[in-house]
């Protein structure tokens, strides 16, 4: 096993500032409601960090089993912030899984963060400027401004690219976690339920003592899932990109209202929490945490503005808001989903999935 003596220094960029504070008392592992004898953390991982056991960390699944409820953080006698160290390991793993190398740049360089967000933002605005349809000013005609036959295919192409990159990363994650273990294909099928369940309800987060964490997270998650589905089905229901918005009781609109409220609430609470730093999960904010929250909040908020302007039949504000909404959505999805924070939506359930597959494969042997 190789030791990387520079590992701690490297992980500092990912937020692991307190590695050497820990004196390995084990309080964190024992107080953690999610840690078990089979999958132990966080102390074990802090030890790996201290020793520079990079290869061990790269092939571990446990960091994804920690949901940062912060119990460990509150009682650590060294205030070594074990929860934040686990979070830093997850940030690092995200860059390990990512084959493009962009993830690492985004996590470790401020210039890259600003540059990538800026480029995607202005590029989107530029594309809108180039491709938009006629601007009708006496009445709001969003579909005329943003023709569905351009927006929808562009969206699908964009989505497909993201999905391909993310799944590519998941595939690499799979390789790291499974190592030399070979699992029969049937196990992958049998365990699909685990994947779906944990994707849908984040069951493990409910094991934390602080149940409100789960609720807030679930609100956020259902919010963006709803928004995602609505955008996908717009091609069939014509509720969004349309010149004649449907009435308020239209099911898509009701669902959309839920999504907006849930996401705005959860992101605002998270931003306030990170500013106040009261709960352990919000005490330490990496620059990428801010990037995610701010982009998400702005995206949801501008989306909300589009609806409001449309409702009041204000043509120009609607078109501008829509363009800006797109310009935030593209960096949000393009950078967060495959490369940084949001990728956990795939890594967390897949981690449990691979873990179960691996466990059963080893039992079978």
């Amino acid at each position, binding site marked *: 096993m190789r030791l990387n003596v520079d590992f701690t220094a490297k992980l500092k960029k990912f937020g692991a500032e307190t590695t050497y504070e820990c004196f390995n008392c084990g309080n964190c592992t024992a107080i953690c409601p999610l840690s078990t004898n089979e999958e132990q953390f966080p102390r074990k991982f802090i030890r790996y960090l201290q020793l520079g056991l990079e290869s061990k960390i790269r092939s571990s699944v446990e960091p994804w089993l920690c949901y940062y409820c912060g119990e460990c953080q509150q009682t*650590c006698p*060294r205030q070594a912030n074990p929860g934040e160290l686990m979070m830093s390991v997850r940030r690092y793993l995200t860059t390990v899984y990512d084959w493009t190398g962009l993830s690492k740049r985004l996590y470790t360089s401020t210039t890259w963060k600003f540059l990538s967000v800026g480029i995607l933002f202005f590029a989107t605005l530029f594309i809108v400027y180039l491709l938009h349809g006629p601007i009708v000013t006496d009445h709001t005609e969003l579909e005329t401004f943003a023709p569905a036959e351009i927006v929808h295919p562009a969206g699908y192409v964009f989505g497909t690219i993201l999905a391909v990159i993310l799944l590519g990363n998941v595939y690499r994650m799979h390789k790291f976690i499974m190592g030399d273990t070979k699992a029969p294909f049937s196990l992958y099928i049998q365990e699909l339920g685990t994947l779906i369940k944990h994707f849908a309800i984040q069951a493990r987060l409910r094991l934390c003592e602080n149940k409100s964490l789960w609720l807030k997270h679930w609100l956020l998650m259902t919010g963006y899932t709803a928004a995602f589905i609505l955008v996908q089905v717009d091609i069939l229901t014509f509720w969004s990109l349309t010149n004649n918005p449907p009435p308020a009781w239209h099911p898509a609109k009701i669902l959309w209202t839920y999504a907006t409220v849930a996401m705005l609430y959860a992101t605002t609470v998270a931003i306030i929490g990170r500013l106040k730093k009261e709960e352990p999960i919000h005490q330490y904010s990496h620059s990428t945490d801010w990037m995610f929250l701010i982009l998400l909040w702005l995206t949801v908020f501008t989306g909300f503005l589009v609806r409001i302007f449309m409702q009041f039949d204000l043509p120009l504000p609607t078109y501008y808001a829509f363009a800006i909404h797109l310009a935030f959505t593209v960096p949000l999805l393009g950078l967060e989903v495959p490369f940084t924070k949001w990728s956990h939506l795939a890594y967390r359930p897949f981690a449990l999935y691979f873990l179960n597959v691996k466990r059963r494969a080893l039992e079978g042997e």
Partner: protein
Amino acid sequence: MSYDVMVIGGGIAGMEASLTLADAGYQVLLVEKSPSIGGKMIELSKVFPTLDCAGCITTPKMAATANHPNITIMTYCEVQEIYKEGEGKFRVKILKKPRYVKVDDCIGCQRCEIACPIFVPKEYEYGLIGRKVAYIPFEMASPRKALIDLDNCVMCGRCERACPTDAIDFLQQPEVVEEEVKAVIIATGFKPFDACLKKEYGYGRYKNVIHALEMERLLAPSRPYNWVLRPSDGKVPDRIAYVLCVGSRDKSLDFPICSRVCCMYSTKQAILFTSALPLADVTIYYMDIRAFGKGFEEFYNMAEDMGIRFVKGKVAKITEKEDGNLVVRVENIDDGTIEEEEYDMVVLSIGLTPNSEVVKAFKNVEIELDPFGFIKPVSENTNPVLTNVKGVFVAGCAAGPKDIPDSVAEANAAAIQCIDYLYEVGAKVVVR
């Protein structure tokens, strides 16, 4: 009567410093807040690593202090104000709290105590048993005089009628006396860490979680029930666990330093307990065993040889079961497993926290404290008993956690440094 030195605190350090000064011929005023001198040491069972009986070695010191012609003891008194008016000149105001018993008349017969109908928890026994409202603090108290705790008194007057010397005086008032001294020694000792603050261990909520000073009482020769019993149902505990570093080395409780004695006193208690109940299981959960003193490591090895189980790992939490048993959850660092073990009783080895309120009494000079709240010596290494104010010295746990031998050594050092100062300011030794 004028005094050369005022010693604040009548524990082992304060008594020792007073005795050294008095033996050298100086007049000492020893001020103690509680009704008896003796401090924490007189509460203990035995001392490590020699296993001497703490009471047997403290009481002679108490008697020597009490009977020394050059020592005047003011118990149940609090130093309120200290003014430094020049080198060798401190004006002090001392509050004499009313005992409601005329000390000169009280003969310590305890008839008031027998007559009194009201019981309240006994401080000396950490509330393990009760005492009366008219009471003598404990058997070996010095002075062995009664006092009345007026807050709990129902004014029935039985004590007054029972007292053969008419010593009870309900009309006593608090009194402030002024004295002048040439130097001051601070020997206020420590406050035991308030175990309720470590919520995860449930002290105060779980009946069978007790702290180490309570266990000292359960193990002492003068113990309350003459046996170790667990509080919830009086069962003789079969399995007990010690949790070390409760309120020491813990930044989450704002107390990052080591208390220096918990490892050893816990080992001592475990040895005493195992000697009394050889079949009982005792486990000590520790972060590191700090057996740094002479004979400490051997003491620790002896405990291991007696079958006491030492487990490396900081206990994360304790939960109570319906029958009063306790489940301790910890990561066993040695074998890397998360352990959940059930015990009849858990003892929290609480740390030593500062007891430095007395610095507020200094009105025109400021005594410096260290970042943890203890009195700060001018140099930990080369001048451990001098404070930043000339003529004010510190000894024992007032300057930081330490064990009895270190406290005694420091008390002597403070006394000698103080004599140096007295010489400098021209105090005369009274030769009798």
